[in-house]
């Protein structure tokens, strides 16, 4: 916003200059770009849209531009890593590495989460440190362990590429390549990544599919033992909780307390969505668990004690006890959250 205002005033200055030097019949052309809004097909029953998204409506060319940037390795210092290198469509835009690996094999701090249904999330990242999706892309671009570049470096790489220039012009009403345009278009693209066509959705919408017996049994265990946190149609209530998972050995990790400064938030993480969970292994904030079975074994055997351990676990001897059959059924149910259309 601030940037575009500034640009506007630059244009005005320019116009003033031009009009001064040219004498009487100064005229200019107003070009209107046909750039329709994209219909996001917001599914029924999903949580409320993040209000910042209303300031950055997805448009045809905005999304096209954002997708191109998302897949462009030029966003990294040595042109080897794109956003899509860590957020791969076949993994529901997550990663198969336990911890994100950036340029030159540099290892970061956390597991790359799937980029799905971002428009319904009120805060981003494991600790919720960003509230606007538009503010997120700069982080990987400049982080040493990720892309280790800078926004000016990125602009310099793409601003002479005709395809990019044309897309920026079409997407943002004639504005050239700007930092704001990069952030906004990437977010516009991400807003379109909505996953709501899993078997679970089709059963819910009564589109002819039904749960198998195992899936149905799994769903009832889930409702009883998991739903207090993995709630809503996103399977996260978007709260921050410590559930005693094995602790990241890096001293950089503080979980939610890194953001709020509250000791009581130490090692709390945003409850992850379980949509497409089949595709996003390994699991946990730094990929502690290779499989869903490992997650369930861990929860069932007992988690780490902590002062701020979630009361649901505290009241149950730091466990969510599950029989082997319940685990199998739960996994069968979680796999009904897989959306094949979304990953293809």
């Amino acid at each position: 916003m601030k940037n575009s205002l500034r640009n506007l005033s630059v244009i005005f200055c320019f116009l003033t200059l031009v009009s001064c030097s040219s004498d009487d019949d100064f005229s200019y052309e107003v070009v209107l770009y046909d750039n329709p809004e994209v219909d996001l097909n917001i599914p029924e029953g999903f949580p409320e849209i993040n209000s910042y998204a209303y300031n950055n409506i997805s448009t045809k060319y905005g999304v096209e531009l954002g997708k191109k940037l998302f897949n462009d390795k030029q966003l990294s210092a040595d042109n080897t890593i794109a956003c899509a290198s860590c957020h791969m469509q076949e993994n529901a835009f997550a990663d198969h590495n336990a911890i994100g690996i950036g340029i030159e094999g540099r290892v970061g701090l956390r597991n790359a989460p799937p980029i799905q249904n971002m428009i319904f999330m009120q805060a981003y990242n494991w600790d919720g440190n960003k509230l606007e999706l538009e503010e997120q892309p700069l982080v990987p671009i400049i982080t040493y362990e990720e892309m280790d570049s800078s926004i000016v470096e990125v602009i310099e790489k793409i601003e002479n590429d005709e395809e990019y220039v044309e897309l920026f012009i079409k997407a943002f009403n004639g504005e050239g390549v700007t930092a704001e345009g990069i952030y906004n278009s990437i977010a516009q693209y991400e807003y379109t990544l909505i996953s709501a066509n899993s078997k679970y959705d089709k059963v819910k919408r009564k589109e002819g599919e039904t749960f198998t017996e195992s899936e149905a049994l799994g769903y009832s265990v889930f409702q009883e033992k998991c739903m207090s946190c993995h709630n809503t149609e996103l399977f996260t209530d978007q709260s921050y909780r410590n559930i005693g998972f094995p602790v990241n050995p890096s001293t950089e990790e503080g979980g939610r307390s890194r953001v709020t400064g509250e000791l009581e938030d130490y090692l709390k993480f945003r409850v992850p969505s379980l949509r497409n969970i089949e595709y996003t292994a390994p699991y946990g904030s730094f990929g502690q668990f290779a499989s869903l079975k490992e997650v369930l074994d861990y929860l069932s055997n007992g988690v780490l004690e902590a002062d701020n351990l979630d009361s649901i676990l505290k009241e149950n001897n730091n466990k969510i006890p599950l029989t082997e059959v319940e685990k199998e059924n739960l996994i069968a149910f979680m796999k009904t959250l897989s959306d094949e259309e979304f990953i293809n």
Partner: protein
Amino acid sequence: MKTIKNYFLLAIASLTIISCSDDDTPVANNVTLEFNNTFKGTPIVLGEEASTTATVNTSAMGQDHYFSELKYVISNIRLIKEDGTEIPYNVNNLDNGATVVNQSKEETLSYVLSEIPTDNYNQIKFGLGVKTDLNTLDEVSFPEFYASAGANDTEMHWEWGTGYRFTKIEGFYGADDSELSFHSGSTIEGEEGNYTQGVDAYRDIILDLPESANVGNSAPTIKIEADFDALLSGHTNTIELGEDNATPSVHSAANMELFVDNLGGNGSDDVTGMFSIISVEN
């Protein structure tokens, strides 16, 4: 922004008029801020682990400590005239109004404010850190400050928070040279006056000058002491380092605030933090 600039221009313009009719006193001159980083008045010498030359300080809790790295950001500088008028110095332009003081780089220990209108000043205000509205790592608007703060030997970008590090101290403490690492920065989100989450680590410092800085024929130097004894033994908090808080930026920002209040004051009854004025040289 605009009003400030206009005001500034007006001030200069009116001064010009006055000075035309006056003698040959310049309308403006430089003011140099000299930062002296000390432990209770003794200049800090940095040193690596087990260094025999590093300046060692002992905290109120009896813990020895010394630093291998010491950096902080100064911005939002304002000089206050004897009549109370505030002269802001490029407060909305990090390229021209902010600097990283780095104890290992002599040239960063002095910061020259140029074109300060001729007058007598008796107070200085500045920020330790970067105020929230400018703390966005906006390389497009402020490429020079972005580059100097982000240089490999400076490392004052806080990438995950998309802001600047305000203070970065590395060092050692205790009998066995345990690692001490302190990074501060803001995580605040939302609009000013309506913050939705996070910690504000920016601190506004207000220092009265013991004698006026007379800008005009002279270009005064204001010698400022930053007494890092305050880190552990400050006006606000007495801190004993241990496993929980020796790396306070990371374990929790709650710890971070204790240190921030010590260095930069708590914003209410302490507006000087570790800073004081040694002298003004006209």
